[in-house]
């Protein structure tokens, strides 16, 4: 079998930011008709590499040639005209415009009197149809789900006749069906000779779809491999550059027994908690020392339930009891007063306060609860921060760093610290491990187990069912905005069981 032609050949790419080399002599080759994975921990240089390929950053050293011609990209439009199109993790389209416009923007078909909208929309519809997307190109983009928007972004990439498609974590907000759909599209494009660069944190997805993988570590190329010839464990080892004992130790904890003491009263109990259009009324009991996993697809109601539990959204129905006494949790403040903590799935826009320091971010929750007039004394702040920075191994270990300068995993740890500082009795974590590197993931998983062992009641949401099964004592299965099953975790419960529960009839919403 001969290797297909190389379309993009990046050699010796070096990008320096003041003081540090973000990329140091990195090579990457993309071949026509292949799906190529770019793997690495957070901070390994993946996103910098993508930005170099797509013209967002200029390279300091090295060459990028596309189709044999050496290119220098001065901006994203240069990269696009060289045939490289990119779909970013956060869909970068304009939600105020129609689907068709988003597909065609900058490439509208022009007639004698300016843009010929009929022809433009027809071309957009054609492009969408190629991805089997039967939606009205005149409908506004905002009326579609993130998954559809992602496919629209890919349609756009196809319209500009790209020979290279860069997909930066396209699957992180998609559920299983949607991922399958995306993969089908990717395969079709690959078979048409498009070179695809695929970035994902999900190892299974890499093995399902990719032909080759380039591993980056600390800004350097670790190597390029054929996926079929590289065992998963070895791939992870190459990404981490260390042994996998960390991960294994967590995996061993799966043999959870049931909740320690069946007799205790629930910490928190909700009856018929619901919100029109978001969640059918749900009953749920949370006990001390127990991790309750919410399993379900994106949009199944798992996030909605978490937000209602915390009062982040307003519930239409339902009663809440905390340790037996009735309370109203109608807003985050009320939740905080009842020592309920909630970490949102959207770390960047609903979690961190980017321009505040790590210290300020950590004490924010505590301070909010005390009110503005009673400042947390500085000595106490420093003590708290030092404790958590050490126990969670937050890096860099400087409390006065702005939190936006931390990697995703470290930001997540700071947010956890923010909540733990308030000594919560219920901790709700929505996708705490999404988009962070494998090492940090293992640490956060271990932390969750530990917190539960210490008597906290944890609600845990993750798209990775393996993780839910591994950590939870009890699992609530969500589907179509309702709780459809609740099962005690233990021997004999595995991911396949959850998948079949989630996928049972009537899944179409």
């Amino acid at each position, binding site marked *: 079998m001969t290797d297909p032609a190389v379309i993009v050949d990046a050699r010796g790419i070096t990008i320096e930011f003041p003081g540090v080399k973000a990329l140091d002599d990195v090579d990457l080759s993309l071949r026509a008709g292949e799906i190529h994975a770019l793997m690495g921990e957070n901070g390994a240089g993946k996103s910098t590499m993508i930005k170099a390929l*797509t013209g*967002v950053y200029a390279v300091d050293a090295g060459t990028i040639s596309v189709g044999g011609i050496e290119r220098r990209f001065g*901006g*994203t*439009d240069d*990269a*696009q*005209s060289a045939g490289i199109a*990119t779909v*970013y993790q956060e869909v*970068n*389209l*304009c*939600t*105020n*415009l129609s689907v068709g*416009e988003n597909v065609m*923007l*900058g490439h*509208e078909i*022009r007639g004698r*009197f*300016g*843009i010929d909208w009929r022809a433009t929309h027809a071309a957009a519809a054609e492009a969408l149809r190629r991805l*089997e*997307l*039967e*939606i*009205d190109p*005149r*409908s*506004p983009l*905002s*009326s*579609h*789900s993130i*998954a*559809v928007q992602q*496919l629209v972004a890919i349609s*756009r990439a196809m319209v*500009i006749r790209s020979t290279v498609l860069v997909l930066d974590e396209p699957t992180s907000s998609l559920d299983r*069906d*949607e991922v*399958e*759909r995306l993969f089908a599209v990717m395969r079709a494009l690959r078979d048409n000779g498009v070179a695809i660069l695929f970035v994902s944190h999900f190892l299974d997805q890499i093995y399902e779809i990719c032909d080759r993988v380039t591993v980056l570590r600390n800004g350097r190329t670790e190597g390029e491999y054929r996926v079929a010839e590289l065992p998963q464990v070895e791939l992870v080892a190459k990404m981490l550059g260390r042994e996998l004992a960390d991960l294994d130790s967590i995996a061993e904890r799966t043999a959870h027994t049931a909740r320690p003491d069946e007799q205790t009263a629930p910490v928190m109990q909700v009856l018929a908690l619901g919100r029109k*259009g978001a969640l059918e009324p749900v009953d749920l009991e949370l006990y001390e020392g127990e991790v309750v996993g919410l399993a379900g697809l994106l949009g199944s109601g798992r996030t909605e339930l978490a937000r209602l539990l915390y009062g982040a959204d307003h519930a239409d129905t339902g009663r809440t009891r905390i340790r037996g006494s009735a309370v109203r949790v109608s807003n985050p403040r009320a939740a905080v007063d009842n020592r309920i903590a909630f970490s949102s799935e959207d770390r960047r826009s609903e979690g961190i306060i980017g321009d505040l320091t790590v210290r300020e971010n950590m004490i924010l929750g505590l301070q909010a609860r005390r009110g503005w007039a009673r400042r947390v004394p500085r000595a106490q702040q420093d003590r708290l921060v030092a404790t958590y920075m050490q126990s969670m191994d937050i890096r860099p270990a400087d409390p006065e760093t702005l939190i936006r300068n931390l990697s995703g995993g470290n930001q997540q740890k700071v947010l956890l610290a923010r909540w733990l500082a308030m000594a919560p009795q219920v901790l709700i974590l929505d996708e705490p491990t999404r988009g962070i590197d494998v090492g940090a993931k293992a640490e956060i998983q271990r932390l969750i187990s530990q917190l539960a062992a210490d008597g906290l009641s944890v609600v845990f949401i993750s798209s990775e069912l393996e993780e839910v099964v591994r950590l939870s004592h009890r699992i609530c299965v969500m589907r179509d905005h309702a709780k459809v099953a609740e099962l005690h975790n233990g021997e004999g419960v595995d991911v396949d069981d959850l998948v079949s529960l989630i996928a049972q009839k009537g*899944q*179409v*919403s």
Partner: protein
Amino acid sequence: MSAPTTSLTGTRAAVFVSAVRSRTASWASVLATVGMLVLMLAIGQAAFGDFITPRLISSLFLNNSFLIVLAVGMTFVILTGGIDLSVGSVIAFSGLLGAQLLAHGWPSIVVIPLMILSGTVIGAITGVMVAFFEIQPFIASLAGMFLARGLAYVVSLKSLPISDGGVDWLIATQFTVGQWSVTPGVILALLFVACAFWVLHYTRFGRTVYAIGGNAQSARLMGLSVTRTTFIVYLISGTCAGVAGLIFASYTGSGNPLAGLGMELDAIAAVVIGGTILTGGSGYVLGSLCGVLVYGLIQITITYMSIDSWWTYIVIGALLLIFVVFQRLLGARRRA
């Protein structure tokens, strides 16, 4: 299994409904403005008897022709999510510059382009700051505002009369059909509206304007020339202000360093009343035209009712409030 498709896109009917609702929503604010306009005319007619006359309609356009041109430029800027505070001062600068040059015996064929160009230059300065140096539009155009007002005083510290035929022609000439009358100034203003509509809806530049207002970061990553488009938008606004200055000078027959004081707010108010959202990305230039007419009608009505002029401020403030709350409710419904 067809499930994935359906779960991705929802049912066809749902898509249709949402499309219709969303498309209506973006026009709803404009329709509300038109409704308001009709209502005001109807009430005026009911209250004063012969309110709706060709004369009233003609003078509505005549008295607000410069504001229409300003609002056109402002619409471009606001659609990108920006704002241009300099336009009021440009009116003074452009008018006074023209008056001074004419007084020195320059021919109007040279002076008129220079008056327009003076606005373009101020727009270019604001545009450079916003587009290339990424200074917030509010502050950048504030600099433009101070600059133009100051330069007006540099040109002349007091008002200068204009008696040149070339400039006067814009307003003094009246094409009359029955009681209807229209001046070249009004025609010019409406021409600007028409051109702006075409540019915004039938050119790639126009669509880029909307895209920037929707999400500038995305627009950049989509390979659109955000920097250039942003720059040009301020250039357009400045040029419109220059033209408005020309019409205003012709309308008042003079150049005045105090002309156009606060007129940038009138233009912004008109654009907002016309249904354009200040964060950008949504709105129509035809809405802005309606906004100006509503604005003009309020002034006429208050004159008709012969009540104190400060009620104009209060009424416009109240009207802004109503419109903004209305848009807010629409927006909330759209998101739900």
